[in-house]
């Protein structure tokens, strides 16, 4: 005997000659915006229209769900059942897990309905009640393989739960096998989650096993779950192929949008193969290949797709797109279906994980990652009032600090943004934090992991010392180290041996995220370094003979001067746009074509630049100031002796150990040659910009935070470029304003060497420099690591010799 269901008008076989029987899914407030709005407006005819539309598009059974926060489910169900049963030819599927609702609606229905659904989540009470109703009113049931442990993921578990349900439904409640439709659950193969790679295989395998062991039962599946998280156009193809494969192994009904099923034969073979590889986990890159392959696929019905997106999917998409519009409403809807904490853990965190993966593959640029993080953060803020307590327990916690003597904030803050918006508890304890304090706070907060950040080489050395202190203090957390001056080798060879637990180099915030995930998996190891990796070049001017015939320039004055009257707007002409846009901001071309990049540049990057430029000028955030001077000097071996009113200052420079053996001192004439003239400057953009970036960070405007900081950094460099040009003109080694394109490649006479950069790595030179120029007059001070505060400051020694160019010692 075959199972069938019926409406007032017709009877429909559950096992169609050409399967599957299609069950329309859109009469559901969470499945269709049109239906939701009609339901909330109690526009019953409009609800009916959604049902009739589906019939017209090929649905043979109509799922009807009215559960929605704030509404009376039973009343709505009764209302619509009465209307639908007189107007729809397709039999109804009552989508409710409430026995009370079903009890009211089943007796009203003039046909044979299906109940969607039963499961064993509560151990069986609900199942008992619903099965009794099914028996009494002759309805079929959809049975989900969920028990008190949750949803069954593997084919064995699915089989086991199905067996249990079968036993209760058939042996205890006397339902017939063909009254049961098992939904063995579908999970997405599109998330990149390693543990879910076999999701499709498990489901298909389970259908075979259940079919074999429990002859006569039917099956159904929410087909579109298989492709959750992928692009709509790609989903349509993958859903159709999955449906085809599922039917092959015995699926007889499917919950789908009938209009979105593509006939198997119309799908190109290459598309099919991509889907098959992904569904059957045929190679480790299947998902990446699939995404690449369908990247160009056209979205024909884009609007409609957003309309029919489930709210879960919509939230996922909003995080991916960094779209904060309408989050309040969306989250209100979702709160009707999920606990706030589940929204965070099951929807938001996986979406951010995907964002991280896209970034890692070069498919998403950093500015967009920060917009996604803003969306995540805003969602969490909106959910927080509804959470009983912030569930700290079980959450991995991280302490972040910038080491002593270092005011560099942004590297650490980016790490904070990425970690906290991936669901970790971050204690960001600030800048200039001494080892003793880190130890005390780590103990007090009982954190799982400690992360240290720093900008300078000095900070890197300090991290190494800190590790010794951590060891002595008995800290047992793994330590993550990050910042510009660190290298894999330094961390592996110089740092890790000082500490018993893993010490890990993190090149960026995502490396930190990866490390924490490894820590959670018990797999975190110290950074390892292989001797013998290719050594990097040390580029530099290749001159063999240094021309000594150059005369010192005429300098306009001797000693120091202060300049506070600088037009901020004029700096923008000296700004290195490539470095700002591609480097600081992260708008790199990556996988884009030239045209795509040009479009991004024109539509996103330049308008952003204009906006920030106008804002910082109008608000007076830029306060460029300079101290500079010219001095008599003589070079002596590797040192330069500088004469000033306050006495002689000595600057020592290292010499390259290999040919050509360059040293900055060589570019200046010695005593025998008659001595020379040398320039210095210290420039700053002032403190205001730093204050403004801080405001942005503290108000969770992550994207603008990085952008404004980047602009400040490059404007600081622009000020240095501008002032260096002015000094060359004053010294008569350049006639007039030059061209920024040439400046980028040192297209000018002489050079300026910033202390701390590779030709003169010792930042200790800031000490004599500050005595010469007294930059405290323009508000600049030094930390114990010779870092300048405000951070948007830079210093240099200015050399006129034409052969002087950058090199590394």
């Amino acid at each position, binding site marked *: 005997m075959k199972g069938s269901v019926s409406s007032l008008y017709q009877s429909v076989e559950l096992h169609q000659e050409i399967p599957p029987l299609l069950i329309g899914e859109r009469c559901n407030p969470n499945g269709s915006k049109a239906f939701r709005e009609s339901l909330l407006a109690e526009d019953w005819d409009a609800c009916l229209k959604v049902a009739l539309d589906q019939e017209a598009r090929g649905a043979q059974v109509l799922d009807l769900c009215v559960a929605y926060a704030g509404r009376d489910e039973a009343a709505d169900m009764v209302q619509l059942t009465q209307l639908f049963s007189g107007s729809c030819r397709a039999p109804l599927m009552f989508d409710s897990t409430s026995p009370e609702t079903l009890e009211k609606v089943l007796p009203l229905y003039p046909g044979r309905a299906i109940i969607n659904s039963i499961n064993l989540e509560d151990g069986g009470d609900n199942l008992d009640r619903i099965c009794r109703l099914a028996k009494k009113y002759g309805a079929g049931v959809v049975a989900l393989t969920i028990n008190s442990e949750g949803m069954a993921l593997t084919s064995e578990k699915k089989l086991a739960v199905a067996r249990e349900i079968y036993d209760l439904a058939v042996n205890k409640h006397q339902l017939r096998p063909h009254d049961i439709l098992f939904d063995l659950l579908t999970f997405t193969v599109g998330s990149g989650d390693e543990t879910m790679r076999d999701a499709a295989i498990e489901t298909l395998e389970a259908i075979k096993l259940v079919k074999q062991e429990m002859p006569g039962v039917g099956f159904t599946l929410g087909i579109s779950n298989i492709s959750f998280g992928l692009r709509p156009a790609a989903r349509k193809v993958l859903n159709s192929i999955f449906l085809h494969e599922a039917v092959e192994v015995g699926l007889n009904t499917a919950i789908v949008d009938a209009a979105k099923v593509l006939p198997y034969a119309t799908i190109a073979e290459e598309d099919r193969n991509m889907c098959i590889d992904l569904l059957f986990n045929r190679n480790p890159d299947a998902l990446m290949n699939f995404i690449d392959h369908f990247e160009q696929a056209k979205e024909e019905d884009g609007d409609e797709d957003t309309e029919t997106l489930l709210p879960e999917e919509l939230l996922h998409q909003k995080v991916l797109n960094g779209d904060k519009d309408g989050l309040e409403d969306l989250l209100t809807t979702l709160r009707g279906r999920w606990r706030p904490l589940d929204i965070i853990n099951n929807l938001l965190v996986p979406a951010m994980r995907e964002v991280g993966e896209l970034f890692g593959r070069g498919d998403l640029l950093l500015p967009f990652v920060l917009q996604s993080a803003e969306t995540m953060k805003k969602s969490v803020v909106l959910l927080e009032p509804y959470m009983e307590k912030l569930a700290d327990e079980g959450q991995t916690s991280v302490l972040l600090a910038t080491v002593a003597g270092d005011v560099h904030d942004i590297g650490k803050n980016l790490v904070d943004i990425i970690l906290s918006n991936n669901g970790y508890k971050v204690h960001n304890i600030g800048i200039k934090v001494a080892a003793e304090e880190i130890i005390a706070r780590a103990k007090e907060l009982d954190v799982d992991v400690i992360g240290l950040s720093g900008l300078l080489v000095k900070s890197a050395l300090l991290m190494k010392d800190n590790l010794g202190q951590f060891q002595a203090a008995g800290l047992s957390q793994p330590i993550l180290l990050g910042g510009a001056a660190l290298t894999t080798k330094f961390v592996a060879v110089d740092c890790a041996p000082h500490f018993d637990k893993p010490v890990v180099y993190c090149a960026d915030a995502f490396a930190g995220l990866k490390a924490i995930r490894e820590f959670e998996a018990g797999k975190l190891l110290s950074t390892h370094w292989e001797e013998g990796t*290719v*050594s*990097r*070049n040390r*580029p*530099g*001017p*290749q001159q063999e003979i240094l021309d000594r015939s150059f005369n010192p320039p005429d300098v306009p004055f001797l000693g120091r001067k202060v300049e506070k009257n600088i037009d901020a707007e004029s700096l923008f002409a000296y700004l*290195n*746009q*490539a*470095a700002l846009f*591609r*480097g600081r901001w992260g708008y*790199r*071309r*990556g996988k884009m074509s*030239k045209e795509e990049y040009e479009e991004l540049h024109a539509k996103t990057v330049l308008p952003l630049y204009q906006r920030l430029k106008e804002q910082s000028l109008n608000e007076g955030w830029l306060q460029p100031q300079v101290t500079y001077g010219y001095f008599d000097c003589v070079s002596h071996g590797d040192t330069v002796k500088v004469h000033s009113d306050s006495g002689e200052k000595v600057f020592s420079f290292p010499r390259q150990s290999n040919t050509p053996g360059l040293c900055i001192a060589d570019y200046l004439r010695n005593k025998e040659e008659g001595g020379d003239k040398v320039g210095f400057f210290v420039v700053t953009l002032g403190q205001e910009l730093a204050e403004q970036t801080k405001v942005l960070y503290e108000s969770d405007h992550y994207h603008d935070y990085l952008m404004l900081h980047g602009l400040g950094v490059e404007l600081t460099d622009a000020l240095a470029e501008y002032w260096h040009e002015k000094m060359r003109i004053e010294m008569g080694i350049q006639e007039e304003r030059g061209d920024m394109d040439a400046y*980028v*490649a*040192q297209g000018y006479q002489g050079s300026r060497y910033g202390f701390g950069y*590779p030709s003169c790595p010792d930042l200790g030179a800031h000490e004599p420099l500050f005595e010469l120029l007294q930059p405290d007059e323009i508000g600049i001070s030094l930390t114990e690591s010779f870092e300048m505060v405000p951070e948007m400051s830079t210093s240099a020694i200015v050399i006129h010799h034409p052969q002087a*160019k*950058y090199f*590394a010692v």
Partner: protein
Amino acid sequence: MRYICTCCGYSYDSDKGDEMNHVLPGIDFEDLPEGWVCPLCYAERDQFDCLD
């Protein structure tokens, strides 16, 4: 083909080569020797974007 350093703005042009790194004209970016870094800021090759 030209490639730009995203850290400092230097651009490598195969028609011109790169004197600071002893690279003669005519070498494609992909064929630059191992260990090649930006001649100005020492950034590694993966920090470059193609301009053409």
